[in-house]
């Protein structure tokens, strides 16, 4: 379980528009890496290119290499669906399936793919995933109730449980706490540091304290101006980025001078 990610000279395009340019990054397995930067700088675009989710928009494509351990996920003949089953994703707004119960939401990765399993196997997966997402004790008595009846923070943990249930190699999180209150945010952050023991985690956040709290390494993205491509400015240990950045833009951003 858990793979490393290596990007080599990665350019992400939307049609003719170059959205992210020349990213070189090595993300170690079983670590938390945070992407920070001002809005529109391409960090979400780059994150979505890590599991080929950006391709749901017409005209999106990528140049360069993106290696999951040693396999190029943009190599010829690679099925994006397989990539996405290995690289899970948690979104900004909690999005449990409204037609499904809590239990079915956790099993969604299996059920939607038509996988057959016995009830005891399913129960095992549900309990394991919900325990993994620190949600088991709160919902164990109402697994058959709709997932949309939970609070926002619980819904987000349900989404994480749903992602964990299919045992991905990597979990991508796109501002997972920006729609949540501080208590729920704390719960998610605790969860992230536990998940790190088993998964490679990449998290986009606008909250620099959060990046400092949860991540070992941080990448700072910036954009030169509207219409220009976003670039990765600096990538280093989180403590270095926040305390002793080498790049002046990074220093100005983390000290709150812009962005």
């Amino acid at each position: 379980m858990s793979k490393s990610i290596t990007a080599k000279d990665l350019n992400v395009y939307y049609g003719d528009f170059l959205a992210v340019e020349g990213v070189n990054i090595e993300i170690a397995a079983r670590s938390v890496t945070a992407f920070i930067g001002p809005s529109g700088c391409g960090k979400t675009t780059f994150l979505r290119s890590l599991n080929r989710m950006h391709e749901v928009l017409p005209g999106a494509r990528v140049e360069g290499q993106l290696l999951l351990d040693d396999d190029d996920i943009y190599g010829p003949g690679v099925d994006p669906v397989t990539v996405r089953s290995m690289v899970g994703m948690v979104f900004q707004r909690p999005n449990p399936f409204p037609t499904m119960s809590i239990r079915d939401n956790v099993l969604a990765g299996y059920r939607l793919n038509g996988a057959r399993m016995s009830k005891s196997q399913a129960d095992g997966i549900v309990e394991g995933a919900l325990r993994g997402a620190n949600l088991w004790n709160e919902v164990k008595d109402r697994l058959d109730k709709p997932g949309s009846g939970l609070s926002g923070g619980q819904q987000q943990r349900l989404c994480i449980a749903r992602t964990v249930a299919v045992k991905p190699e990597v979990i991508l999180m796109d501002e997972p706490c920006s729609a949540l209150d501080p208590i729920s945010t704390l719960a998610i952050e605790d969860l992230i540091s536990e998940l790190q023991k088993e998964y490679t985690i990449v998290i986009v956040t606008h909250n620099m304290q959060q990046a400092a709290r949860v991540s070992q390494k941080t990448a700072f993205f910036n954009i030169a101006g509207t219409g220009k491509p976003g670039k990765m400015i600096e990538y280093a240990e989180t403590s270095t980025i926040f305390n002793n950045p080498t790049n002046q833009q990074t220093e100005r951003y983390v000290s709150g001078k812009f962005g």
Partner: protein
Amino acid sequence: MSQTQQQLTSASVEGPAGPARQNDFDPSSILRPTSLTQNRMPWWTGLAVLAVSALFGAALSSLISFNFALWFVFTAVLYVMISYAVTRAKVNRRQARDKMWKNLVYLAFIIALLPLFSVIWSVTSIGIPGLLEPGFLASDMQGIDGTTDQRSQEEGAPVLGGIRHALVGSLLITLTATFISVPIGLMTSIYLVEYARGGKLSRAITFFVDVMTGIPSIVAGLFGAAAMGWFLGVGNSLGLPLPSRSTMGITAAIALSVLMIPVVVRTTEEMLRVVPNELREASYALGVRKWRTILKVVIPTAISGIAAGVTLAIARVIGETAPILVTAGFVVSNNWNLFQGWMTALPVYIFRQFQNPTSPNFSDPSHQRAWAAALVLIIIVMGLNLTARIIATIFAPKKTGR
């Protein structure tokens, strides 16, 4: 009032800028009244005005010749005018104008509802006796001729004959049309929403669906007859055992599906579009293929709207007369076979009973059957609309569950 206001004003204006100007005008006096209750009229004002205008309306209309329509018109006009005048005198012009427009809007709404209630009232009151006739729903028109009706009208014998064959025909034809249109319409809208990326093809489809919506129903009927005629001609020339005449239930179903497909496309497209993109992305992110996502996430989420839309489309075509008349014809006996022989639908039955009474000289029994059939048709359409709402509520994604 002006005393205190002036004191207040001069006090508030006085300041370092200079001495207070006397008799200064306070801008707030044109903005707000001096007491909190000044601009309100007592709650019974509206009722009083209504009573007065109803009284004068009755008086005015009886000057000409009293009837309810005239009374209603006079009352409405008087009510709008008097309430404007009263509000203007008691409150102010702005509120009076507001009141007038509000009254006009309510009036327009009532006028729009009048035909509906009028139709329901007249069809119910005239149709009930025919509907209560024993065997009306259970018998067809086989063996009912002029002498039967003459006996009913002249000697008071019970009106015989019923709508069983028309009910069966309407049911079979509409259900078949639904089975043809729903898959085609649903798949078209899935293509438009999920696969088309705003290309030429999708714009062309949208345009032609809009054109189809406007096809006159008789043209759809002629198309159905012509298409089936051509198909049977080709089939017969190849020696297939097909009927030679195109007049049968399935032809009517095809004609109706031409009318139904655009409605289904439009409503289901709307329903698929409101499914949040986040749900599709959540499904993709779990490694689920696109067609499975559509089948298991998008359609279940939108199923309530889709079902409601389909039910409304059925309600829309079940009342069609012309296309069924030219494709399935009209018979007096029951026919369960869609692929052989003529078939009657409820609207065609009503049309025939009115236009060509079974006994031309003694038409009352025929008219009674027509009104009763119309009542049944209205009940069916209203039932379908109600079903659509119930379906929408039952299948709607559950919101609570704490």
